[in-house]
């Protein structure tokens, strides 16, 4: 494939909870907002479902950035406290990223409610800009299935 020498386009994998963030991404669509096409959204029922191993796999496969997004704490979570579990898991996880040679900025944990389509667009814009600055990820790791 003849590759055009153009600006680096980062690829971002997003794990979005069904009730808040996924709904916000839908709302961004129905409101015809516009954002760069660098994100690939994977729907999960709750941000608490996201296993750090999945995130590692995404980085290993070539993701330049990963976003895990769910409902606002304290009370928005559809499953009472799944967002807290995600928070606890990924705050620890973020610290480990550095040890693997992955800049912490490449990972974001976000709270985006079903109404916050504009917040979603803002997060995507920020992340794309950030990753363009950082350049492509060249991780030095291997994850086994």
């Amino acid at each position, binding site marked *: 494939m003849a590759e055009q020498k153009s600006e680096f386009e980062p690829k971002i994998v997003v794990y979005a909870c069904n009730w808040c963030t996924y709904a916000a991404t839908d709302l961004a669509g129905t409101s015809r907002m516009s954002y760069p096409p660098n994100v690939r959204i994977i729907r999960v029922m709750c941000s*608490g479902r996201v296993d750090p191993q999945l995130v590692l796999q995404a980085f290993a496969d070539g993701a330049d950035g990963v976003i895990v997004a769910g409902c606002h704490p304290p009370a928005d979570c559809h499953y009472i406290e799944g967002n807290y*579990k995600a928070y606890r898991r990924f705050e620890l996880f973020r610290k480990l990223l550095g040890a693997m040679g992955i800049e912490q900025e490449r990972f974001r944990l976000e709270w985006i409610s079903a109404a916050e389509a504009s917040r979603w667009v803002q997060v995507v814009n920020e992340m794309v800009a950030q990753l363009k600055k950082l350049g492509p990820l060249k991780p030095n790791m291997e994850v086994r299935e």
Partner: protein
Amino acid sequence: MSEPRIGVYVCHCGFNIAGTVDVKKVVEFAKNLPNVVVAKEYVFMCSEPGQDLIKEDIKANNLNRIVVAACSPSLHEVTFRTAIKEAGLNKYLLEMANIREHCSWVHHDKEKATEKAKEIVRMAVAKARYLEPLEELEVGAETSALVLGGGIAGIRAALELANYGFHVYLVEKSPTIGGKAALIGYIDPQTKGAEVVSKMIDKIKECPRIQVLTNAELIQLGGFVGNYNAKIRINPRFVNERCTLCGECEEVCPVEVANEYNFGLSRRKAIFLPFANAYPPYYAIDYRVCVKCGECEKVCRFRAINLKEEAKILELKVGTLIVATGYDPYRPFKGEYGYGLHPNILTLFQLERLLDPDSPTKGELIIGGKIPKNIAFIQCVGSRNTTPGAKEYCSRMCCTTAINSAIKIKERYPNTNVYILYKDIMTYGSDETLYEEAGKKLVNFIKFEEKIPKVLITPEGLFIEVFEYTIQENIRIPVDAIVLSIGMLPPRDIEELIAVTRVSCGGEGFVREAHLKLAPVEAPTKGIFLAGCITGPKNILESIRMGSAAAAKAMALLSKGKITIEPMIAQVNEEKCSGCAICVGVCPYSAISIKTVNGDRIAHVEKALCMGCGTCSAACPSGAMQHLGFKDLQLLAQTRAVFGGEVHG
């Protein structure tokens, strides 16, 4: 399970998708993905012929997995699941690729959008390869309901449900049911709010299946659709059914506060009767202000008062919840249009109260001691961004209410000049006739635009200064009284409502319905229904109809006495489970326990309690706990497919 045979169906959605995404290219791309047997396009996949296309292919090509690349699963997952089920496939063997909301609607570059759409389809196909058939679960359902909020919408819903044979608990936070409609003088030119509410309350009294719980609030909601466990706290009323309404207690009570049932137009005691036809028909003590001096207890000859009464907790089992907790009137800040700075500046609610025969002035329009010669309404106070701190939305009922009051004033006090200062008059539908009538009765309508009217409090009296739109000039109107047509706000305690019931809010702060257009009385969570102003401003009639509709929906859901439960829940692989019990700790529903099977400690999931969040699956160190529909392998395949990779499971 046999080798996956996947059919991919790409929807044009008219131009919604095809306008930005090259659908043909996506179809060609999909054809070459692993296990894809057929890939097709159609203008509206969700239409009957679109669905038929899929059904025919399932039979003709022996397909066992379906990927529909179209809109968000929140819109049509159910549609396509039903379609493939009709073709004999397990309905969970479907994966939606969201190429509309996530792609064609948010991107403009055709080439990039098409590339993205291809990848979204590749991800969906990758997941589809690992989908498994799942079976729904059936559980029994209670034919009883909890109606939250004793306003007009809640009362209507309760009456309707009782008619269908449901046992209804009508839970109201204040000491009486009736809500704000009971306090409105005239809800239309012929109808008194108090009269309508009284008639509805009379019906409630007759109905043995409705249990009215006042001074009560929902503090916990457990369980699930058809089988909710509701915990209700009943705050003490301190007055029981022996009360004869003699009123002697009121006279001796030393505590005096503003009477919220007169919107602050009068004062009441700590022991009080909210309004003449309040129900239950007993006095109540406002526990927040009572000083427990005991005077009332002493004076009461019927031993109806017990100051030692304590809060009670009631546990109820109900099948459904109807949320009808209404709204709060907008609270103008001090000085907003002179509010709070002059006794003759009042809110629309206060005026409405004043016109009620049961009001402090017995229905007479007496403001500041006399009948005003000139009275002006200022519209959009707190709404349509007209005032500082106002909401963007229109509060829907204030124009009609103001005009209605203006007509009443003109009928009874023909010599009073009435001005209505407005941006747009919102007498939509048949209410337009009221606007017309007000014009005939010589109510003066004064239009303003972005520049809002100014209220001047001077030694010579009250004035309104406004830039009149139709003459494009500043005018100054001398007035004796000003009515601020305040809008509606989400109720103050909506945060608690969200925390307890898990309903969610839209950007404007009211509760979100399952679909704004086609599911206006359903919450996104199955089993919870919405009525009245909790979803946004409504007039009284609209609230009543919503009450009926919410009850109807609840009945349709529970009438069979059983509920089907989504099978996308947690499942334990007993071979892999080590009994470490990490999952037990993370489950928010206490649905997991450790059981001993043949001497081994193994996690056990109580299916009816599991809500399918998947948090246990993420926490499980051995991969024994799997979230059906979102299994590790399925999510991994989806993740790897972003980059064109595959898993080998």
